[in-house]
């Protein structure tokens, strides 16, 4: 290292230090440069398409299961039964928000737009179980039992209607209607069996089929 390089080093050290100190002095003196946000009191404005916590509007949800299938981390779980009016009834809809990675796939795939990102991002808990969001407050077993009861009632009504139809058929004895009456009674019996079995995996179908069969007979 020659003398020139040596002196250059010294000059460079002094100059760069002075430059740096000028910059920090400017920041130190100017109070407007502060970028700190006093968090609990002040917050960032949430952007329009912010992907915060998920929220499912269970009134519009059709329990189609798309969100469950598309979720890459399996954080959504859903239980449903077929109700008396043939539509699916949600028994439970849980999102493990501690596991969610906010990819937004479930929201994109939701056909009725009931699942949405909110702007919420603040949650803390001492227990991981508290991170699971329950969107249906009622107990799943209770809902199942209730739906099963409704289904059974509907099935019973259908069976009654079928019986009445049979009776009227027997009285009138029209020859060509024989076959259809037979069919309807079979359908009603099947529906009843199913409802009794499990609280109804498929109660709505049974109930819907039975009333249809009855008017058919009447003709």
């Amino acid at each position, binding site marked *: 290292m020659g003398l020139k390089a*040596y002196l250059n*080093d*010294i000059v460079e*050290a002094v100059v760069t*230090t002075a430059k*740096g*100190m000028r*910059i*920090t*002095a400017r*920041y*130190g*003196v100017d*109070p407007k*440069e*502060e*970028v*700190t946000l*006093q968090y609990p009191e002040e917050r960032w404005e949430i952007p329009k398409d912010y992907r915060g916590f998920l929220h499912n509007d269970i009134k519009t949800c059709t329990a189609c299961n798309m969100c469950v299938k598309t979720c890459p981390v399996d954080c959504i779980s859903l239980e449903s039964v077929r109700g008396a009016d043939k539509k699916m009834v949600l028994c439970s809809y849980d999102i493990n928000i501690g596991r969610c990675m906010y990819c937004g796939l479930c929201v994109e795939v939701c056909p009725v737009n009931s699942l949405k990102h909110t702007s919420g991002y603040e949650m803390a808990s001492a227990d991981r179980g508290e991170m699971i969001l329950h969107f249906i407050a009622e107990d799943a077993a209770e809902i199942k039992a209730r739906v099963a009861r409704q289904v059974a009632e509907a099935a019973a009504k259908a069976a009654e209607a079928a019986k009445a139809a049979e009776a009227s058929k027997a009285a009138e004895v029209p020859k060509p209607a024989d076959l259809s009456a037979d069919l309807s009674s079979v359908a009603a019996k099947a529906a009843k069996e199913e409802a009794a079995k499990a609280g109804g995996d498929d109660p709505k179908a049974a109930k819907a089929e039975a009333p249809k069969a009855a008017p058919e007979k009447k003709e």
Partner: protein
Amino acid sequence: MEALALSLVNAVPPLAGVPLWTVTLLLMVVVAAVILVFALTFEGVGSLVLRKVAGDIQARIGPNRVGPNGILQFVADGVKLVLKEDIIPANADRLLFKLAPYFVFVGSFAAFVVVPFGVGLIAADLNIGIYYVMAVTSLVVVGILLAGWSSNNKWALLGGMRAASQIVSYEIPVGMALIPAVLIAGSLSLQDIVRSQGGLLGIFGWNVFHNPFTFFSFFLYFTAAQAETNQTPFDLPEAESELVSGYNVEYSGIRFGLFFLAEFGDMFIVAALATACFLGGWNVPFFHAATLPWIWGNLLSLGVFLAKAFAMVLVMMWVRWTLPRLRVDQLMRMAWKFLVPLTFVNLLGVSLWLLVFRGKGIPGMIASLFG
């Protein structure tokens, strides 16, 4: 101190019955307590100011929760440090581990003894003042090395070794950069050095403006002292990002507090020495503080001295939050290839200047031109 005790005995007749050495001893304890209180207060408030300055420079706010605008943060920190559990690692060398913080704290606190706070405000006007400061602050190295060794932790040991090499290296430029002030005053006593910068020249009587060599000497001293006290561009012994916290990783509670206090104590000592040796000490510009009544003269000079010293502390913090940390080899290169030769050249220059111009500085010569 004995003279002060004598005058006290003369002023208060009932004390005449007490042996003189008792009064002297009591006075010493009182003075030590006063200085300790000052040092601790400075160290507490200094830590708060340091964080506030850091906040300002980094475009943040800094502590602002404890008390109005965060003023009481240092109290909270102190209480926390005192209340925390004092942990000693299982395989540590217990005796040395316990001893180390005291070495460090004593090394930094003992230097307060010769700090010339005012016209008559000095705990002990030793005739070897500067030499004493250099010697006693070397205890810090011993403490840091002990802390690093006894913790039985590789980071602590690395930090301790770095501190030892760094402080020993930088002690040379620090001493060499202070000698010009000694040469000009013709005395090692800090009071004499401060008095030599008084007179009617105002701030141009200060040693910084005495001649070009002393001007550079001031900056060389400031740089080297920054390194000697492990301030940030040279904080390799602590180096949070690589050595976690260096020599004091294993310390907690009050023992860590002692290291912490010593760091700020060192900061003040450096600023005080820079003030006393180069910036005119307690001299009030264009004014003889010594001619005032004792109390007012001392208060005025104390105020001036503290203002200068605190300004220097602020500059140290400013440097601290500006420059990035050096590498070990860069640190050693800077000490041995740059600071040591430059301070020697400076010392030679100052000596020649004093020889050629018979001890007169540039401002003095200009003043004598106009009579």
